[in-house]
């Protein structure tokens, strides 16, 4: 029996990349691990997970869209045989794993940024206070449930071999009788995923409209091959979809290059991007708090500077 169970994630019948962060977490825990994939199409998608060195890949096809109550009992039944249960701290992992933990009587540490195995004792590290404090902790219960930040656990690379796949039985849960999945509108984009992109360009309230996002920010995003992000103010105002929000409530990103356009740099925004390697701010106020984390700061009106920057990047790229 393996020690760690990785709860992988399905999206529209395919394995979501967040699952590979879960595998990395299991490798950092150390020892053997198995992978569990639950949901509609799990059996069919399992082959995507067999090359990562898991003892086995367990699947459970549960029809219909995801609600926590339909997955948690099945995951808990499997998890009962493992010491450690890990998953990426995506919306799925954060929604599902605490419920699983409560079912198996385990403590749950969420949004972990580091795992070390101190002679068999798992010592975890996690950001708190919007990333302004790091806590080092242990989980006191015999069984331990952990969700980890996608930006801190690089997607696992395949390690060869071929894990055996087997199906497990679905376990029902009374709570599922009172909740019904209606629909999932997945936001589709041709651009790289925010959480995985090497470059992110985010815009703020100062863009003033959805059109300006399209006409000013998007050309820079596409010239750089970047992902697009936004502040809460821009998402709230409806300039871009809510799933582009970067920050304490939104997504955490840590690209090589983060360009903050007309974003003041509130603590809650910084919480989602200050792990980026290089941060550029374009803001007309050189006192804006984004300066606390910016490596380069262009004091300028974004409506002039961003189109000029797009043109300059094109020129430099063409020159090689």
């Amino acid at each position, binding site marked *: 029996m393996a020690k760690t169970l990785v709860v992988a994630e399905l999206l529209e019948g395919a394995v979501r990349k967040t699952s590979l962060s879960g595998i990395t977490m299991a490798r950092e825990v150390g020892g053997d691990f198995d992978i569990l994939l639950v949901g509609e199409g799990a059996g069919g998608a399992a082959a995507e997970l067999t090359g990562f060195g898991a003892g086995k890949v367990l699947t459970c096809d549960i029809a219909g869209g995801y609600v926590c109550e339909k997955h948690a009992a099945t995951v808990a039944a499997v998890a009962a045989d493992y010491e450690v249960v890990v998953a990426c701290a995506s919306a799925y992992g954060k929604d599902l794993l605490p*419920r699983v933990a409560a079912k198996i009587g385990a403590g749950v540490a969420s949004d972990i940024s580091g795992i070390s195995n101190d002679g068999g004792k798992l010592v975890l590290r996690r950001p*708190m206070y919007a990333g*302004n404090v790091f806590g*080092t902790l242990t989980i006191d219960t015999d069984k331990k449930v952990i969700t980890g930040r996608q930006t801190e656990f690089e997607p696992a690379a395949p390690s060869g071999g071929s894990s055996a796949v087997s199906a497990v039985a679905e376990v029902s849960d009374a709570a599922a009788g*009172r*909740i019904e999945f209606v629909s*999932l509108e997945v936001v589709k984009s041709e651009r790289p995923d925010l959480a995985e992109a090497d470059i992110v360009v985010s815009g703020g309230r100062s863009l003033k409209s959805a059109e300006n996002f399209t006409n000013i920010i998007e050309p820079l995003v596409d010239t*750089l091959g970047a992902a697009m992000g936004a502040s809460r103010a821009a998402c709230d105002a409806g300039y871009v979809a809510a799933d582009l929000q970067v920050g304490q409530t939104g997504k955490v990103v840590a690209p090589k*290059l983060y360009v903050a356009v007309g974003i003041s740099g509130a603590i809650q925004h910084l919480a989602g991007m200050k792990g980026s390697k290089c941060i550029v701010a374009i803001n007309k106020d050189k006192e804006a708090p984004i300066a606390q984390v910016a*490596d380069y700061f262009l004091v300028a009106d974004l409506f002039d500077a961003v189109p000029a920057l797009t043109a300059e990047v094109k020129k430099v790229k063409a020159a090689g």
Partner: protein
Amino acid sequence: MKILVPIKRVADPDNANKVKVSGDGTQVTSEGLEWKMNPFDEWSLEAALRLTEDGAKKTRTGEVVLVTIGPKDAAQTVRTGLSMGAERGILVEANDQELDSNMVAQILKAIVDKEKPDLVVMGKQTVDGDSNVAGTVLAELLGWPLANYAMSLATDDDGKTLTVKRELDTGVSTIKVTGPAVITTSDRILKPESVKNGVTPADFKYPEAEGGRYASLKGIMAAKKKPIDEVTAASLGATPQKTLSYLKFELPAARSGQTTFVESVEELVQKLKSDAKVL
């Protein structure tokens, strides 16, 4: 409809970069910072108030009970919620430095067993612990369904069934849930049309706001007379088990290097290419 709203006081989130760690690293200290209601809880309270009122007539149609687990001083935060419009409060006395989300969920379960609300509407996370755990664990302990990350709520039968849009990292999921249930809220619950309760006229729009409603002077006066019951976990028959042990706290390493102010886009691109090597 009766709604239980758990709220926590936190050190002023806009000054979270001013929290310090004690010399021995065992405690986070927020001396000198003001206590505020956890913003996510303020938003869930706003949602609960909208569910239990006629927004157009500004009259209350249901009951909102606030509960906080913390020291006696945390009554201030409950008072703030009462002045926004909640009916009454409960303070469960505890040392909040020693709580984890699991213990919070266990204490809240005891409160729910006693109060029997139709819904528990809570924040998705506290901005000090940033855990995002208590709501889900509470739902499981109660055997109730959970609608996590609600960006809109609609009911026209006093909360027995709700249509909830959930904001996820992949998009938006719509679910139908039959109460009693636990709901946690996302930012977008504050949008003008995010809550529909069948009482407030369907075309009514709340003002655009980045937080919960302000207390009116009348609300502040009324809150002074509203009851706050003080109880303990033991008096509720709860024996919450701690599941996490924090060994130490640290401040993050400062970002290396200074901010370089650049004069032009040409200079910026040149620096990104030659110095930072990110282009």
